[in-house]
């Protein structure tokens, strides 16, 4: 029984959070992928319907959402989903602020509050530090593509990480991000103990104590 529920967007976020919690020795959460950022409320309802006993004992719900290129709008969207699932009193006043409802609800924005991007962007520094040579090659490659002119941190992060993983994972250039975190064959592609993930791990560790 874990009285904490993490609702994330997709399966890859699920794997990332699972590995992060395990590696940083954070107390366990239920993790429920929603299948998209407009389906957080549905996922909460699914959890309620399928795990009633666990749902009744729920103390904290954390919605984990990507900022993409519009952090404010994406936070508002996460709040709208919380309102749909639990009502207006459960809506938090800002990212990483828990509401005073039961269960307490909070929103964790990825890569971090107010920072444009996604989970892929958050992983860039960890992947770069794990293999500096390939990292430099990928930087050069994206510079050649003039990726900075896309004016999208979110798409830039995705392109960078996808190129990096393809270059470093010869056995499976399409290696899914989730497998990169959790499959022993791919250990080291993105070291989850990297400092880039510390603030998220610290936030989740704080939830267990509230």
């Amino acid at each position, binding site marked *: 029984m874990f009285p904490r529920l993490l609702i994330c967007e997709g*399966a890859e976020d699920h*794997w990332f959070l*699972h590995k992060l919690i395990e590696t940083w020795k954070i107390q366990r959460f239920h993790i429920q992928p929603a299948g998209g950022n407009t*389906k957080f*409320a549905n996922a909460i*309802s*699914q959890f309620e319907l399928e795990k009633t*006993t*666990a749902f009744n004992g729920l103390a904290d719900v954390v919605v984990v959402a990507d900022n993409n290129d519009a952090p404010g709008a994406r936070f508002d969207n996460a709040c709208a989903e919380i309102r749909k699932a639990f009502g207006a009193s459960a809506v938090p006043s800002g990212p990483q602020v828990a509401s005073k409802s039961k269960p307490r609800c909070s929103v964790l924005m990825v890569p971090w509050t107010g920072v444009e991007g996604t989970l892929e962007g958050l992983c860039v520094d960890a992947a770069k530090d794990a293999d500096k040579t390939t990292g430099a090659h990928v930087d050069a490659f994206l510079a050649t593509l003039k990726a900075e002119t896309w004016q999208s941190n979110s798409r830039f992060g995705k392109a960078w990480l996808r190129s990096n993983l393809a270059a470093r994972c010869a056995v499976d250039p399409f290696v899914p991000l989730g497998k990169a975190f959790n499959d022993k064959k791919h250990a080291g592609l993105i070291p989850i103990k990297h400092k880039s993930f510390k603030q998220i791990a610290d936030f989740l560790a704080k939830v267990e104590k509230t």
Partner: protein
Amino acid sequence: MLDATWIENFRCFRQLSIKGWAPVNVIVGENGAGKTTLLEAMFLAMSGSPQKGLLLRQFRGNDALFQGDPGAIVDAIYAEFFHRLDLGQSPEIKLRGKGQENRTLKIIRGRGNVRIPRDAATTKDAEILSPIIFDWWTGKKRHTAGVKVTPKGFEFENTGEQLPSNWFFYAAQTPVPARENADRFAAVRRAGGAEKFVSTFKSLFDWIDDIFVDSSVGTPVLSAVDRYQRVPLPLTAVSGGINRMAAILLAIALRPKGIVLVDEIENGVFFTKHLPFARALLRFSREYDCQLFLSTHSQEWLRAFAEAAEDRVADIALWRLSRGAKTPEMRRFTGHTFKLGIEQGAEVRREKGDQEDVPSPSDM
């Protein structure tokens, strides 16, 4: 409209307390969890004669022919209503609501009485009042009805109350008699609701051109005219499922503010008809202000029902019965949760174990 139900010592229920019935209630749960028993309990409490108990027994497939000592037969018929067949623990069913459904039924096994009618020629004409007594309470008023065992057989007493004629129970497997549907259609027509019923039914089955009451060897039957063959056919001859769907919609349309209980609503309904039938049920329920209690095993039907509800889910509740350690347990979910969960592909019919919450790589 029913708001709450308390059941004690009735069949599998040692105790069950339900508060917060919605206008439309969908009941799920595994076999033997008590879905049928719950509907039966409410139906029995809404009735006014022990004869309905015999009817429920027949709905469950029990024979209506008996042999042996009359007193023992009566005991045997009603014993199954007692929790664990313990005749010492009286079953009690309390219904709480806003109208005549506010009533309580106690089934008591007391001592049988022998009554000798004044005009009896011999003691063989004596009537035996069975030891099973049904007591209905409405407030402080008691209405008693028993089962008499006479030389001619059983006689079921009636409380004599004027009970509403718009409370119905449709068992899972029992066919709906043709005459019953014909009578109800005639009553709906007299009340001015025939056109709505016919147009709804035609939209469910596009081959139906018209529906009317016909006569078959002196018995009224509800018949449909086939648009293509131009032949009127009794609905019972066309399909048991269609006949049942018609019966349920007619029961709702018969009089406003009714209560309709349907066990296994999906029975006899082809999968492509789940959605239009669910839409018709919801529309009729709302327009006639009829409270529905629908049990189901079908996820397919639940999905259709959630889709049919669209955004109007405030009057719907999903109830899940599960076999508790000592007695079945009932959990309530709002229509909102039901709808959102279904959209996410949730398995709403049973609670999943609290397992490792990591998907397999094949989920990715």
